[in-house]
C-alpha cells in the first residue's frame, strides 16, 4: 500500500511541478465550459432578415415590425438596397429576405389571394428550418389579428407544453454533456501521456527494477488523475449551475458514483493507449483520435445518434461517453434515478470492467 502511495506522491509532484500542464488541467475545463456553453448554442435567434417592402402601406410596415419585435429576427446592419435579394443573401448581410409585393393592403381588405415571398439562405440547414417555421408563425399570428372580431378559425389548434427545459435553453443541454468530454480528455489523455513519458525518458525500466509490481505502478499513477478528473467535474458542475443556471434536479451522489465508473473506463483507455505507443506525441494523438473524438462525435453530445448511418450507430454503443452523457443529462435535467437509468448504468459498468481488464492484462504483458 505504501508503495502505491510513493508512486502516487511522485506523480502528484510531477503534476504540481509542471505549472503549465497544471494550468491546462485546471483552467482548461472551466474555459472550455465557458466557451462551449456559449458557442454551441443552437437556439436560433437574431436571424438577420431584410424586408423588401414594395407595398409601402401601414399593413406592410406592421407585418415587418411584427417580425422584428418577435425576438427572432434582427434588421441587417446595412440597410439593403431594393435590388437583388439573391445578392443580399450571398453577401451574408442577411439570412433571409421577406419580399412584400404591392397589393398586401388591398388583399387584406378584400380577402383576395396574395403571396408573400420569403427567400432563405439554406446554407445552414438548421437555421433555414427555424427561419421558415418562425416566419410561418409570424404570418399566421398577423392574419389572426386581422380576422373579424369573434371569428373563430376552424380546425385543430396545438396547445403545447415543454417539459424539463421549458425556456428551451440549449446551454442546459450542452453544458452537462461537456462534463463527459472533459472527464474523458483529462483522464485518458493525461494518463496515456504520463506513462509514455516514463517510457520515453527511460524511467519506466528503473521503476520496474524497483520492488514495485506493475499493478502498483498503474494504481499509483492513475490515482492522482482520478482525483484531478473528479475535481474538474465538480468545478464544471458548479460553474454550470451558477453561471449558466443549469438545474440540478437529481442526486449529486448518484452522479459522482457514475462519474467514478466513467473515469475508470476513461483511465483504462488511457493505459491501453500507453501500451500501444512509445512517445508522448503519439500517445496524445492516439488519445485524441480514440477517446476525445468519439466522445464528441458519436456520443449524442452534439449530433443525434438516431440520425447516423447504422454502422456508426452500432459503433456508438462502444463509446463510454454515450452512456455517461445520458446519465448526466437525466440526473441533472430530469431528476432521473436508477429506476430509469439502469440500462445505461449496466452498459457503462460492463464497458469499464472490460476496458480495465484488457488494459491491466496488456500492461503486464508489455512489461513482463
Amino acid at each position, binding site marked *: 500500500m505504501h508503495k502505491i502511495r510513493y508512486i502516487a506522491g511522485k506523480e502528484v509532484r510531477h503534476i504540481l511541478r509542471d505549472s503549465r500542464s497544471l494550468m491546462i488541467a485546471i483552467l482548461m475545463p472551466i474555459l472550455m465550459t465557458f466557451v462551449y456553453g456559449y458557442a454551441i448554442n443552437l437556439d436560433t435567434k437574431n436571424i438577420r432578415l431584410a424586408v423588401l417592402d414594395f407595398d409601402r402601406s401601414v399593413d406592410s410596415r406592421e407585418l415587418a415590425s411584427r417580425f422584428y419585435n418577435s425576438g427572432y429576427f434582427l434588421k441587417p446592419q446595412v440597410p439593403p438596397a431594393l435590388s437583388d435579394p439573391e445578392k443580399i443573401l450571398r453577401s451574408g448581410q442577411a439570412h433571409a429576405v421577406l419580399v412584400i409585393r404591392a397589393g398586401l393592403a388591398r388583399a387584406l381588405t378584400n380577402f383576395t389571394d396574395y403571396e408573400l415571398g420569403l*427567400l432563405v439562405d439554406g446554407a445552414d440547414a438548421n437555421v*433555414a428550418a427555424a427561419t421558415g417555421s418562425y416566419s410561418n408563425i409570424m404570418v399566421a399570428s398577423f392574419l389572426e389579428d386581422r380576422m373579424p372580431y369573434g371569428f373563430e378559425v376552424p380546425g385543430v389548434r396545438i396547445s403545447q407544453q*415543454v417539459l424539463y427545459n421549458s425556456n428551451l435553453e440549449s446551454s442546459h443541454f450542452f453544458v452537462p454533456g461537456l462534463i463527459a468530454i472533459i472527464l474523458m480528455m483529462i483522464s485518458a489523455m493525461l494518463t496515456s501521456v504520463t506513462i509514455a513519458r516514463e517510457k520515453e525518458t527511460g524511467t519506466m525500466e528503473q521503476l520496474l527494477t524497483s520492488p514495485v509490481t506493475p499493478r502498483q505502478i498503474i494504481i499509483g499513477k492513475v490515482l492522482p488523475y482520478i482525483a484531478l478528473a473528479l475535481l474538474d467535474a465538480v468545478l464544471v458542475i458548479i460553474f454550470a449551475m451558477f453561471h449558466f443556471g443549469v438545474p440540478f434536479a437529481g442526486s449529486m451522489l448518484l452522479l459522482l458514483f457514475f462519474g467514478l465508473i466513467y473515469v475508470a473506463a476513461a483511465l483504462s483507455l488511457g493505459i491501453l493507449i500507453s501500451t500501444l505507443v512509445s512517445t508522448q506525441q503519439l500517445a496524445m494523438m492516439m488519445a485524441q483520435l480514440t477517446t476525445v473524438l468519439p466522445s464528441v462525435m458519436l456520443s449524442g453530445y452534439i449530433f443525434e445518434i438516431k440520425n447516423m448511418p447504422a454502422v456508426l450507430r452500432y459503433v456508438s454503443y462502444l463509446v463510454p461517453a454515450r452512456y455517461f452523457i445520458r446519465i448526466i443529462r437525466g440526473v441533472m435535467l430530469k431528476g432521473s434515478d436508477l429506476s430509469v437509468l439502469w440500462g445505461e448504468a449496466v452498459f457503462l459498468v460492463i464497458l469499464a470492467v472490460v476496458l480495465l481488464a484488457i488494459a491491466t492484462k496488456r500492461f503486464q504483458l508489455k512489461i513482463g
Partner: protein
Amino acid sequence: MVRTILALMKKEFLQVFRDRNMLRMIFIMPIFQLILLGYVASTDVKLISTAVYDHDRSELSREYVRSLSAGEYFITDAPSIPLLEAERGFKENKYEAVLIIPDGFSNDLEQSKSVDVGFMVDGTNANSASIALGYASLMTRQFNERVTGFSPPIKLTQRKLFNPEGESVYYMVPGIVALLLTMITAMLSAMAIVREREIGTLEQLMVTPIRTPALILGKTIPFALIGFVEISLALFVGIMWFKIPFAGSWVLLYSLAFLYLFTTLGTGMFISTISTTQQQAMFFTWFFAMFAIMTSGFFAPIANMPKSIQYLTYLNPLRYFMTTVRGIMMKGASLDVLYPEVIAMIIFGLAIFTFSWMRFSKRVK
C-alpha cells in the same frame, strides 16, 4: 538563401515522410475525421418518436395522426404506457413528444369549430424541441386546410437558396476544410521547431551559417505545401464522396487559403516560442484551435452567441476563413461580397506573422 531554404525544406520533408506514424496522422486521420464528421454532423431534426393518446378513436383523429407522421418528422409508434406515467417515458427516453387528442375531436371539427390537442415535448434538447413544435404546427395547418376547407387568403411561399435540400453535410465539409488547414499547419510548424529545440539540434542549426529568415521560411513553407495537399484531399473526398456542390472559383479559394496561411503559420511559430517541449506545443496548439473552432461559427451560428462573445469572434481569424470557404463553395461568393473577410485576413496575417517572426528571431539570438 534560396539554396539554404530548399535544403531545409528537403530535410523537413524527409523527416515527415520517414515517420510512418507522422504520415498517418497528417493524411489519413484528417480524412477519416472528415468522413466521420460528414456522416455524423447532422443537426437535422427528424424521426421524433411520439407517443399518441387518441381519446377520440375516429377516422378523423387517425388521419390527423397520419398527417403528422408524413414526411418522417414524427414517428408515432412509441410504446403506449398509461398517460399518468407519461413522464417515465420521457425519463427513459422512450419518446420525445406526446400527442393527446381529446374526446370529441372529430365532432368539433365536423361542426367547423376549433379544437385543442395537447402536445408535450421533452425540452432537454432545446433545439430539436423547438423545431419539433414548428413541424407540428406546420403539419396541423396543412391538415386544417385540407379538412375544413378554410385557408387564409395570404400565404407565405418560401424558397431556399444555396442548399435547398437542407443537407447539413454541405455546410459542414467546407467548415472542416477550414479547420484542417488551421490545425495541421499551425501544429506541424510549431512542433517542427520545438522538436529541434527539444533534441538540441536548434542550437546546431544556429551555429551554421543559416540566417534566421532562411530558417523560418524553411520551417514554414513545407507545412504550407502540406496544408495545400491536405485541403485538396479534403475537397476531393467531399466532392467525390459526399457529392458536395462547388459553386465558386477554385482559384479564389486557393489564393485566399494562401493568404490565410500567414495567420496559421504565424500562430505555429508563436506557439513554438512559448513552449519548451513538444507536449506543451501540442497542448497549446490544441488549446488555441479549440477556441478558434468554437468561436468561428463552425458548429453553431455566431448570431446565437451573447453579444460579448460575438465581439470576441471578430478577433478570431478562423471566423473569416470559415465564412470565405463556405461562401465560395456554397454560394459562389466572389471578392465583391468577400472583401471584408479578405481585408481582415490580410490584417491578421501580417500582424501575427510579423509579430511571431520578431519573437522568434529574438529567441533565436
